[in-house]
């Protein structure tokens, strides 16, 4: 069952140059891209830098509007969707864990803010624990933190007191507070050490099965995609060049770009 459809998405960014900042050209970031994401699957969007994958992610997230084309959720266009409604469907984890959290607010403030939003209508479906609004919101925050492998103590601390991996976990907790159906992860591992990458990937796998999440996973590393994805879509310069399961694309890649990405994975001695 198709959960999300990206239909004929095109997006161009103007290049400004010269002293008067005239528009001297365009960078076509996405050219008529159409991709489907099925319910419950992990779709990996793979490509080198500049291929348009982050732009596409932001369009699906609602942070950018496409020049043409549309994003459909269960058949319905998301362009008419209010921000609050979209927030309960799609959430995002960003690449830089050091910029994903507001440095001036405590972890608790940032989580509570989202939990509070989750509890207001239209569909405040979060289960509450304990009596009293504030107490139960706090309990929900603690639950969220524990579900990503952190303790409730984190609530009173500030982001700078945490490592990159821990900050990424907090960002994940925040994203999950609204109980989204689709989680977009924009190169969530790139800024982390390999050992931490492995831990966060394991966390994603665990959350995917317990919460029945659908993932749109953006990465430039085919090895990471191979580890986690059900399907892989390869993007090059704003166009889809190959699509398939890890078994097909990694074993018998059809497009030379896919082959280049495959070669780029550091070879390990046998």
């Amino acid at each position, binding site marked *: 069952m198709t959960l999300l459809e990206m239909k004929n998405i095109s997006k161009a960014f103007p290049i400004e140059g010269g002293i008067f900042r005239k528009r001297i050209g365009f960078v076509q970031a996405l050219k008529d891209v159409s991709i489907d994401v099925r319910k419950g699957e992990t779709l990996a969007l793979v490509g080198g830098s500049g291929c348009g994958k982050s732009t596409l992610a932001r369009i699906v997230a609602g942070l950018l509007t496409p020049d043409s084309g549309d994003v459909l959720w269960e058949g319905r266009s998301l362009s008419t969707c209010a921000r609050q409604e979209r927030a309960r469907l799609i959430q995002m984890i960003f690449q830089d864990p050091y910029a994903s959290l507001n440095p001036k607010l405590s972890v608790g403030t940032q989580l509570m803010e989202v939990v509070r939003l989750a509890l207001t209508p239209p569909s405040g479906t979060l289960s509450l624990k304990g009596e009293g609004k504030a107490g139960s919101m706090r309990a929900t925050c603690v639950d969220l933190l524990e579900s990503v492998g952190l303790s409730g103590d984190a609530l009173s601390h500030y982001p700078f007191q945490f490592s990159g991996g821990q900050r990424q976990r907090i960002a994940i907790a925040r994203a999950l507070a609204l109980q989204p159906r689709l989680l977009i992860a924009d190169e969530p591992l790139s800024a982390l050490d*390999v*050992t931490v990458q492995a831990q966060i990937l394991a966390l994603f796998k665990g959350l995917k099965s317990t919460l029945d999440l659908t993932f749109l996973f953006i990465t430039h590393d085919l090895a990471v995609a191979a580890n986690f994805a059900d399907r892989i879509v390869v993007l090059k310069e704003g166009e889809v060049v190959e699509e398939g399961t890890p078994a097909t694309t990694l074993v018998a890649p059809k497009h030379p770009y896919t082959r280049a990405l495959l070669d780029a994975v550091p070879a390990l001695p046998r």
Partner: protein
Amino acid sequence: MLSIEKLNVEYYRGGKTISAVRDFSLAINAGESVGLVGESGSGKSTVALSILRLIRPQEGHIVSGKIQFQGQDLLSLPPENMRDIRCRKIAMIFQDPFTSLNPVMRIREQMDEVLKAHPSLSASPSRLVEALEQVQLESTRVLNSYPHQLSGGQRQRVMIAIALLGQPSLILADEPTTALDVLVQKEILGVLFSLQKKLGLAMLFITHNLGLVTTYTHRIAVMKEGRLVEEGPSQAVFRQPSEAYTRQLLEAIPRLGRSTG
């Protein structure tokens, strides 16, 4: 060529003194490439900065230990000799190609600066062209460009070219590919290691990814929390790690052959 003996380095952070490197010893022979692997905070970058004595007095200091380079004790050298070492004998390549180059100067000017700073180097334009050709960059265009007009991979190649200007015998590469995507990473690793072989340079390659260095380097040294945990020929360490921590690092490497979750 380079021998580090029982190095101890401390940093000052928030009023406290933290031990970043503890009793670290490592030797690098001429023409050999050694991979220094460890997680963030393991002290690997500190080792490189200590060799070149680039740690600022307000940030930290080398407590004890010896660093011998080609017979000279680096830690007791006077500043002018140290400057000479930094350009002509040992060169360093940093992680972030976006901030390692001055954004308001053209590449030609930045490379010229390096040549002018060392009177023993001839400041001829042909040297710049040669240096860039070594890293397979088209010299006329690149020399006239500003850093922001070049891609991340091109910038890192420029950094390598600058490092080679002084014709050093040892290169310290501190996570040079961490900020680049896989395709560019492969290119840069190719350029770096082929130059290393061709010019017979010794190299210390620092990374958090054990997988990167296994096929490229002769030896691997693993660091954890400031200490050397394991060391040996790359193939041997990879196939038969003797330490649990090394095994952990190996496990963490994302591999293509794994089944999907």
